[in-house]
């Protein structure tokens, strides 16, 4: 139960290190001579990390029909699956085009070459939390899903903030656009889920 939290801390530390180094990735160095703006290791980490992050959201959302989610939550989940699948496709495309390692969409977290275990990105559910959600049904599933997905989305916003705090990061147009879109869409969706959760708690009175 504790291990995953340690992993989260490791992630943060890892990102912080990236912030100070502002290193160009090898593929980026190769491209630096071209007219394209350079990108940094922070950009690659952000894009690659978003793949595992989103993969978990898709798994969570995929449970709504089988776990007795309400109609409103099922609709929300349908949208989350579409949105996050498309963003994963974007992330994979960007990495492929820049000759960077393309991690698999693993709901356990960010898969990095040479590492045994996928790394939890900010906001991602621990295996315990995932088990808890998987065990819930009906109204309890709705409540837990909304609670955990708000946490999950807030993690994506944290990832955007970490990216923008990294020197030289998000100079590449698509990355800034992608990050800004993630920020705007997920902020809006957190607002929506907060209200849904409020409704749920109120009607349970």
């Amino acid at each position, binding site marked *: 139960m504790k291990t995953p939290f340690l992993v989260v801390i490791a992630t943060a530390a890892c990102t912080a290190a990236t912030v100070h180094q502002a290193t160009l990735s090898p593929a980026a160095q190769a491209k630096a001579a071209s007219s394209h703006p350079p990108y940094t290791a922070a950009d690659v980490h952000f894009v690659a990390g978003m793949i595992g992050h989103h993969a978990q959201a898709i798994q969570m959302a995929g449970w709504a029909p089988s776990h007795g989610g309400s109609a409103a939550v099922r609709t929300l989940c349908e949208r989350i699956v579409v949105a996050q699948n*498309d963003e994963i496709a974007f992330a994979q495309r960007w990495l492929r085009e820049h000759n960077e390692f393309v991690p698999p969409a693993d709901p356990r977290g960010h898969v990095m070459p040479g590492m045994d275990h996928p790394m939890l990105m900010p906001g991602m559910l621990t295996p315990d939390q995932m088990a808890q959600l998987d065990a819930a049904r009906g109204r309890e599933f709705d409540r837990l899903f909304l609670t955990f997905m708000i946490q999950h989305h807030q993690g994506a916003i944290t990832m955007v903030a970490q990216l*923008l705090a990294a020197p030289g990061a*998000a*100079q590449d*147009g698509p990355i800034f656009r992608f990050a800004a879109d993630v*920020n705007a869409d997920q902020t809006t969706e957190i607002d*929506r889920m907060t209200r849904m959760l409020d*409704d749920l708690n109120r009607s349970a009175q």
Partner: protein
Amino acid sequence: MKSQSLFALFAIVALSAAACATSKVNMSMTAPSPDPRVGLRAGWMNAAQAAWNIRLVSTTPPSPDFINRSTPGDFQFINSDLSFSGPYVFQGNFSGVQVWDMSNPRSPRLHKAFVCPGSQSDVSVYRNLLFVSGEALNGRTDCGTQGVTDTVSHDRLRGIRIFDITDVANPRHITDVQTCRGSHTHTVVTSPTDADNVYIYVSGSAPVRSPNELAGCSAAPPDSNPNSALFRIEVIQVPLAHPEQARIVNSPRIFNDLTQAPSHGETPEDVAAAAKAAAEARATGGFTATRNGVEIVLGPRFVTFRLDSIVKARGGTGAPTAADSAVLRTNAQVIFDRSVNPPLRGNGPPPGPTQCHDITVYPAIGLAGGACGGYGLLLDIRDVANPKRIGAVADSNFSFWHSATFNNDGTKVLFTDEWGGGLQPRCRVTDKPEWDADAIFTLAGATMTFKSYYKLPAPQTPNENCVAHNGTLIPIPGRDIMAQGWYQGGISVFDWTDPAHPREIAYFDRGPMDSTKLVGAGSWSAYWYNGYIVSSEIARGLDIFELQPSGFLSQNEIDAAKLVHFDYLNAQDQQQLVWPASFVVARAYLDQLARSNGLAPEKLSAARSALARAEKLSGQGRRDALTQLATQLNSDLRGAPQLVVDGQEQGRAADQSKVRTLIGAVTDLADAAR
């Protein structure tokens, strides 16, 4: 060299397409089937095209500094929004601005291209001033191309750049107004009562910058920092005599206490079903309340809980009495409202959008439509510097409200949803028609009532970014018709006169940029400007179109639209459309009456002849002929109801109103005759 031959090929394709389109007029009212937009061959400048009731007049590739010929769809050179002044089209680009002279729409000429990176370069013009939005981290105050790699830098521009374009060929940088979230889009607002200033509403959806870069910027919740850059928009005042003194004069918190619950926009069928259920419930002693204008039945849990509370409140016990039920019945709405829209919680950030994506103002009616996070807002802008929220809608099928367009009468408003930010393919067969669409509302006072969704009807491939995007009204008198860009979904022209049943009447589409992967492209904006639809093609340049007459739109209606002349146009600052007294306007109304069977064929034909006779006359003779026609139409109006087939009472009323409009147009013509 290879790319040059591609361009040559493209020019030939465009010419031949134009030749085909002019060769025949299709008066059919049935769209081609199967839809020719499906399965178009991919390509950059040589993608296959499909057009219906619209003709591509010209397509002009980006100028040399705004294209990377070795990388199709290079993100650095995305063409963005458009603005117009006189013969000039200002085309924003992630690398700067291109100014085209479209005096000859068949061959627009590059007038000026200036490099100044920083997305999105949303552009507006007002008199001698050009405003350009910047939000990306690489934008520099000196327009340099090297970017800004420091996380905090005073070289960074996020906000509004202001240029003097007295000499369009030599734009002069006047000043920048920096904002905390940069400017994703902006809206130039003219005030009917303030001729000395022009205002800019800044919408910025990107993250807040560091206070070390721009003093005072804070992303903290407003309750911990009252100056938070969240939950507000910025209003810039630009003194026209001293634009260098442009500054932020207000940051109105238009989102305060926004508690509208996100709900699914009800269709007329839903409303009818809800009304039936409510009536049945009331008849059997049930309780109802109104939510978003729809009467709903209150559930047994809600009722039992409230009845028990009422019993307790009077100090009683046991089952509720008839008197308790009466108390609940009287107060049901208040209790329901309180439970649906509770007061804001004391801790944590207030819910609601933190910013707008775009705001469309319509100064002539004193209103603005704000597309803000998960909401569509209605703002009172009569005091331009102090916009106030007067209405809000939310819709569970809408993700990220993107922009707004009013109809000319101000009786309807259309909001778009840009779910996925424009980078994603949301027009696939698997994507729902109510997602990434337009939502059409009627507008009465401050009340917006949902009527329907409009989504591009042709499915696109997973390799085409597609979602509802920017458009404007086409000034067809008597109808609400709009042109809209859908990125790689192309351009869709649709009629939303009947807000519950919008219908496509023309389209243009190209195949995807690439058949193997998604490469961003397509129509960012499609705006009507003085007779043409001008589209900013993200990767392919500038497209100019002309509408073709069809069963949905007559030549007279198109000619009437061409009578409306703009000196300048910023799509987000909606100008009221006014048609001059003209025979072609009267004929456009006659064509509409013919299409709707609103007037008997022999009366229509008599009116057409009378109009033609009058046109040949002048002075008093013309005036008399037109007055006589107006009198005849007035008598036709009284006779008209009998001509309508039984059971079509609503159709009759609409046509009555059209005949009255026609009489007004004929009377205007009579008054204008000298």
